[in-house]
């Protein structure tokens, strides 16, 4: 069991905080954009200076599950002034929409350049064990249910088959002027994520959403991640 999961469980939490989720991903060498946790606007500024603009700002709170729904996320922040305004706006919005929530601070994350958005996830089922899922983001998974799944563990060959199985694979290969994406990097994330899940069976549900696939040779990054733990 990883130390972040042990800590969450000892605190009786069934959900990892966002920075804990990133810590877990990093422990398995899954690429995530540089980030830091700021307690206030001042810290936010120095973190942003260090990792470089543009950045994303996300509220950190144990009580909030869907950050976007309560106005807890600001993207594409490119200057210290903008950053200050964004932190203030997030605070105000969260206070109004989720008055019960304690704001612990802000996650400042380097913005990943535009790419193709993917979802990688896992769910535990008593009969099937952990099942790993892969799909393209947005309507491809939600509306068309264009998702491939495998029982964990998923090795490299199986990960390739998962990626090629979705109809949207053609988009990854480059379609109508869009560049081909770094499919090797996606396969790499799938295999590492499978290992993460197998070695941490306490995880009941997980979403890496979105995973952004950049052009060939530039890799892929997990931009947001959610881990839910089962009862021990």
């Amino acid at each position, binding site marked *: 069991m990883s130390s972040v999961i042990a800590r969450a469980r000892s605190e009786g939490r069934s959900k990892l905080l966002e920075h804990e989720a990133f810590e877990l991903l990093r422990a398995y060498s899954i690429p995530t954009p540089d980030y830091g946790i700021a307690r206030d606007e001042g810290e936010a500024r120095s973190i942003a200076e260090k990792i470089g603009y543009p950045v994303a700002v996300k509220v950190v709170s144990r009580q909030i599950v869907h950050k976007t729904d309560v106005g807890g996320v600001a993207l594409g922040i490119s200057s210290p002034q903008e950053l200050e305004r964004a932190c203030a706006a997030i605070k105000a919005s969260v206070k109004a929409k989720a008055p019960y929530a304690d704001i612990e601070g802000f996650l400042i994350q380097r913005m990943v350049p535009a790419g193709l958005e993917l979802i990688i996830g896992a769910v535990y089922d008593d*009969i099937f064990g952990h*099942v790993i*899922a892969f799909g393209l983001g947005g309507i491809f*998974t939600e509306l068309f249910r264009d*998702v491939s799944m495998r*029982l964990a563990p998923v090795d490299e060959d199986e990960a390739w088959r998962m990626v090629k199985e979705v109809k949207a694979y053609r988009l990854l290969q480059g379609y109508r002027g869009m560049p081909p994406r770094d499919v090797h990097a996606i396969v790499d994330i799938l295999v590492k994520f499978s290992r993460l899940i197998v070695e941490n069976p306490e995880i009941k549900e*997980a979403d890496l959403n979105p995973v952004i696939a950049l052009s060939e040779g530039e890799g892929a990054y997990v931009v947001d991640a959610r881990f839910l733990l089962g009862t021990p």
Partner: protein
Amino acid sequence: MADEGLEALISPQSVAVVGASPKQATVGYVLFENMANRFKGKAYFVNPKYDVVEMWGKQFKFYKSISEIDDKIDVVVVAVPAQVVPQVLEEAGRKGAKAAIIISSGFAEVGNKELEDEVKAVAKSYGMRVLGPNCIGVYNAFTGFDTVFLPAERAGRPPAGPLALISQSGAVAASIMDWTARRNIGLSVVVNYGNKADVGDVELLRHFAEDEKIRVVTIYIEGFKYPGEAKRFLEVAGEVSKKKPVIAYKAGRSSAAQRAVKSHTAALAGSYEMYRALFRQAGIIEASNLREMFDMAKALAMQPLPKGNRVLVITDSGGMGIQAVDMLEGLGLEVPEIPASIQRELRRELLPFAATTNPVDVTGSATDQHYKVALEALLPTAFFDMALVVTLMQVPGLTQNLAEYIIDAKRLRKPIVVVNFGGSKMVQDFTKALEDAEIPTYSTPDRAAKALWALYEYAKIRGVVRT
């Protein structure tokens, strides 16, 4: 290595039927009749109510108990009220039986889990394998071993052949038997495991993998019931599918996840999606209904595997050809064009108004010879991996000889399926000649196309496709 217990369940040499009865229209009677008249091994009948029974011009001794039988017993078939079953198993165990088939119901399926656990415990203490309870058991066309308690005159028994069926449902198994019997499809072994107290899909798959006479395994499944069962299934099925084709039809597909979930992934991963994932991962070909399962099984049992996905279509009906192309392409198979140089050759030998493109339309004025010309000129070339041949025998120029030409093309070692329908004697003879020679025939182009798809899918699973 074949498992002794499984071997005893499916191909026993000596059987004790507990609860056999000469009283007609009972389960005990059907078992008695099946085993007395058709089983090629030794059958002993146990029922304390009878002594000697005279039927079908023969005398049958009825035993008071299993222990009275003066012979070794491989399997005990149990058709007595549920409460008595543990006691019968106890006797079977003492007798040294390797397995028991419990037909009786009244166990976990009606909430009587303790009785089922007791049965399991008794069997385990004697190292006996158990099929059931609450099942129709086993049908084995090779040996005549038949515990299916539906009378043969009402539910047909299929002939021996290359297929086996594992079915979670007894009623579905029986209806498949009847259906395959009427179509003369060689379904040699059928097993229904009912409540799956012990033996289930995993053990049966492993058994059929070892059975040389079985070329294709079909599975009808509604759902697993034990924690971690999917994983064990994956491990075994993944190995079996490398040896022989496994086709599954999963019933109960409502895809919405039933449990309360918080994540995106969990909302997408309904139970049916997990079965589909499992089948893909295990190299199992999924059928979307029972007929399709046997359409595919027939092709997989009879035909070689293609090295690619390119299909040659030869037809005497333009309309049928178009339908075939629609289906084939929809399934991801290719219907490539024929090079102009080859078309020139063809044009010399076919009718002037024949289409020498793919599909090749030999037209309603075709003779047997035209099919032969097209098949021989095109199928052995590097342009095609398999053929779908539409033969509407209703046109005047075709004869029974056409079957010989098509059968002769088997030497090319590329899959061939035939579309052919109609009720006339000629059509039936033609179909029979082809099927006897292991050329699968289908009544519509979509079914034939799906059969070719299954061959291609399995070729990919076996890694024989040229890339």
